[in-house]
């Protein structure tokens, strides 16, 4: 067999390889010749096949593409996103606290009209549009792709809808469609927790095509923001063949989206409402399930109606909210910063016990003040408590005793103990923007270029000074005191029907504090409420419900000078904003803690007078609501005497 590319036949039979240098050269040339021909053949063939691909593309895109060109002029393939319904937020009993309702609206699809301006002009003759609205629509039309509809007007009345439908031929590109909008049935009662939704801003655009849809909302605060992606779901899409007027001829294809998931939170909406009804401006109450950290209620007064954000907040409303000194937009339970006052004394006691600078039996004599150099630190009891041990010092809230413990333990040990109880730490609750607060240390002060003095330690021993603690952290502290576990407050109970993490008490690690120490502190807190002489004796629970243990606190918001003290200073004679804050932390039942509570009443004067009764009322409400419920178990209400 011979082919034209075979080299000259004469050389084929020789053995050039073995015949010296010239033979080698000849053989090499021959080999190269064969290679060159064959490589050219291969290369040309491959380029030819690329040419075939080119012609194939030409046919698809240009010739057969005429089919699609026709579609582009008369009928066109148009793709539309189907927004998934946003997931609901439910309370612990399954009651809807954030749901959806229907919203009829007029949309504009830019690619279906020749002239956006003319269409809007006609539209505003039927349903008047303001200059601002038109500017917004034109801006969005420019910003978005031409097949993405832009909302022209939302929340249409039946009348407007009818008028638009009748005039449809004059309104190319306009279509009426039903979307959903967010509805918060409980209004302002849960707005600090559930948050609210608003139209996405430029910075929210994360590539999710869903966010370009008209009427879509993103979570702006609270649970709505924390679980935004879960609640949002994923968009589906339909491919439609539409004619030049925008009428759908047929559906070509459909991709189903993923509906947003329902999120169940641990809050009891009814409990929350009842508590909010009891408290005044500037007050916050937090109720936790002490065993696992679930937030049962978190109330902060005043609040706002989250439904307002849906349609857009007016400038006047926004001004009112932001100028209001009571800060309705801010959740004081998570973002209000207070010194803990005497509620902090258990931490100081535990720090002293752990450092072995104090034992439960150590007695300190309180003459009503402690002198350090020429500075005098007063006990709240001007005449002194006399000689007392640690338990009585908690019960009577003796300042001098804790000045002494703090002096011995040092600020850094106290701060470390406070951090273990959640104070000054990020508790990772699902509320974006929650404050971390501050527990001062020697290093922190030195970083500011100032020395830490022994006097500072003494002041901080009774929870006054630089501390910045949130009511949520105080409730967490109470829960941790009650259980000895590092429970973290959280709101999410389940997502899409699947239980969230953190619901079981065993999931939370132990704090590593000896039971003996914790028990002593709990006994002290028991005595505060239940023993004659305790600072909050008036706030005990009805015997039928159970036994509460707690601790009062009040913090000065201004320094009281020696002069004022000598002239007979009385807080109640001061203007309201100079009066001290009232605080109370508690847990109950004493022998089997189920609930932890913190109450902060701004300028409420005294913990026992203003805060403790609110805590009692909250617990009574909790017991009444949960006793019947199968969920949390309530221990038999038998006031157990602590061992002496």
């Amino acid at each position, binding site marked *: 067999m011979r082919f034209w590319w075979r080299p000259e036949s004469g050389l084929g039979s020789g053995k*050039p390889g073995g015949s010296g240098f010239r033979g080698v050269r000849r053989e090499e040339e021959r080999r190269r010749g064969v290679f060159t021909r064959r490589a050219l053949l291969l290369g040309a063939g491959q380029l030819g*096949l690329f040419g075939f691909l080119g012609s194939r593309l030409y046919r698809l895109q240009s010739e057969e593409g005429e089919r*699609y060109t026709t579609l582009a002029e008369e009928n066109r393939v148009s793709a539309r996103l189907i927004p998934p319904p946003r997931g609901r937020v439910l309370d612990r009993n399954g009651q809807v606290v954030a749901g959806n309702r229907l919203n009829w609206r007029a949309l504009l699809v830019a690619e279906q009209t020749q002239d956006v301006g003319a269409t809007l002009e006609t539209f505003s003759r039927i349903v008047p549009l303001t200059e601002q609205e038109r500017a917004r629509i034109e801006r969005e039309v420019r910003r978005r792709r031409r097949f993405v509809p832009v909302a022209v007007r939302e929340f249409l009345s039946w009348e407007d809808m009818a008028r638009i439908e009748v005039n449809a031929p004059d309104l190319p590109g306009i279509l009426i469609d039903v979307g959903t909008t967010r509805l918060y049935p409980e209004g302002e009662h849960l707005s600090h927790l559930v948050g609210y939704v608003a139209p996405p801003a430029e910075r929210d655009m994360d590539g999710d095509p869903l966010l370009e849809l008209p009427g879509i909302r993103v979570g702006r605060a609270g649970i709505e923001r924390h679980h935004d992606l879960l609640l949002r779901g994923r968009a589906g899409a339909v491919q439609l063949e539409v004619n030049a007027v925008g009428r759908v001829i047929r559906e070509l294809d459909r991709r189903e989206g993923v509906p947003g998931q329902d999120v169940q939170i641990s809050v009891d909406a009814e409990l929350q409402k009842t508590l909010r009804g009891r408290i005044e401006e500037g007050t916050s109450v937090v109720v936790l399930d002490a065993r696992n950290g679930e937030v049962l209620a978190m109330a902060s007064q005043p609040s706002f109606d989250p439904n307002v954000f849906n349609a857009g907040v007016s400038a006047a409303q926004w001004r009112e909210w932001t100028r209001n000194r009571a800060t309705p937009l801010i959740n004081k339970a998570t973002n209000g910063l207070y010194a803990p006052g005497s509620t902090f004394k258990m931490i100081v006691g535990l720090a002293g016990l752990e450092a072995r600078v104090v034992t439960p039996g150590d007695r300190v004599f309180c003459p009503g003040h402690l002198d350090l150099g020429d500075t005098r630190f007063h006990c709240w009891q001007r005449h002194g408590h006399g000689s007392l041990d640690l338990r009585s010092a908690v019960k009577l809230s003796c300042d001098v005793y804790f000045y002494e413990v703090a002096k011995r333990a040092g600020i850094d040990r106290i701060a470390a103990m406070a951090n273990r109880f959640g104070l000054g730490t990020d508790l990772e609750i699902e509320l974006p923007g929650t404050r971390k607060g501050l527990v001062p240390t020697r290093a922190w002060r030195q970083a500011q270029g100032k020395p830490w003095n022994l006097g500072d330690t003494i002041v901080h021993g009774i929870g006054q000074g630089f501390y910045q603690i949130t009511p949520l952290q105080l409730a967490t502290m109470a829960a941790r005191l009650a259980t000895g576990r590092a429970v973290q407050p959280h709101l999410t109970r389940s997502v899409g029907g699947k239980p969230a993490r953190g619901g079981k008490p065993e999931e939370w690690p132990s704090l590593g504090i000896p039971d003996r120490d914790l028990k002593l502190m709990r006994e002290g807190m028991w005595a505060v409420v239940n023993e004659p002489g305790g600072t909050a004796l008036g706030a005990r629970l009805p015997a039928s419900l159970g036994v509460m243990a707690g601790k009062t606190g009040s913090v000065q918001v201004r320094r009281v000078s020696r002069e004022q003290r000598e002239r007979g200073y009385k807080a109640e004679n001061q203007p309201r904003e100079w009066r001290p804050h009232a605080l109370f932390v508690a847990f109950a039942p004493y022998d089997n803690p189920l609930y932890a509570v913190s109450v902060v009443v701004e300028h409420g004067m005294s913990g026992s007078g203003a805060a403790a009764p609110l805590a009692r009322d909250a617990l009574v409400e909790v017991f009444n609501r949960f006793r019947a419920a199968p969920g949390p178990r309530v221990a038999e209400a038998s006031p157990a005497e602590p061992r002496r």
Partner: protein
Amino acid sequence: MSVTYERRLLTRDRGAGLLQKLWLIPWSFVLLLCAVAAVGYVALYSAGGGSPEPYAAKHALRFGFGLVLMLSIALVDIRLIARLAWLGYAAGIALLVLVLLHGNVGKGAQRWIDIGPLQLQPSELMKIMLVLGLAAWFQRASWERMGNVLFLLPPALMVLLPVGLILKQPNLGTALITGMVGAAVFFAAGTRWWKFALIGAGVAVAAPIAYDHLHDYQRARITTFLDPESDPLGAGYNIIQSKIALGSGGLWGKGFLQGTQGHLNFLPEKQTDFIFTMIAEEFGLVGALTVLGLLSLVLMFCFAVALRCRHQFGRLIAVGLGTNFFLYVFVNVAMVTGSIPVGGVPLPLISHGGSAMLTTMLGFGLLLSVYVHRDAEFGAAQD
């Protein structure tokens, strides 16, 4: 004579320093590769919904890394590569065996293994190593010797072994491509034409007969073999969507980031297999042909290197790697235009994917080494 000849290795560029070699690198070709990768960046930017995340930024990073790899390999003496070729081939086979034993199953086939953060598809690497191994075998073979059937038997086994291993994954598409790359090297090395004709005729006769005798479920298995991504229900879905995208792109395209098919996720795998459709939808026929033109230039460079090279080893490598590149592009574009049913082949330098980028740049590194050392002296042909 062969051993001594090889040992001498005295050539013009023996003493050439690295800097001189850098000067010899064809920078216009490097620039061409950058242009193709830039097309990939733009397309992946669009596939990411108009954002460098999650595809485009990684693509640029990988290309940068591949560029460094390519240039480093380009400076390695081709004779050193020739001596290491066997080792490379053996390593490729070892990885293929490893992937069969411990590989990750993807879409019904064992295809890749994890090496740290990298997912390696040994079948991609194998194609390059096969070219190296065959070129090393044929580098000294004279025309006479190429006529000897016994001499052709070992390299034939060298092709069949990896093809068999890849078939076992199972991945018929890649196995076919590997076989074709091997055949191209055989052809360029001077295997007699009638042998190809004989094998081709044998296959052409046997295949339909074999297919006819198969059961329905066996045929279905072959169909999934050919197109692993298709399930019986969704067969053809991808191709239809791809054709709509191409057709609606028209002559000039819908414009950057305006492709409805791609952005609304009607286009499957738009960042990998169907990236070319995305380009054709947004930039039209003009854009698609431009990209095809750029890729043709790359292919032409491969053959130009083959023709200019003065040693058989380099020539065969250039033809083998050129054919490999051609097959990638051809199979991918033919697939998205609905011309052939095989699926799962990315578009080199443009598709998203680290393993493919790495092996592509490794191949181009070898090609550049051939170019830089095109005048290196090897042993002459022998019988």
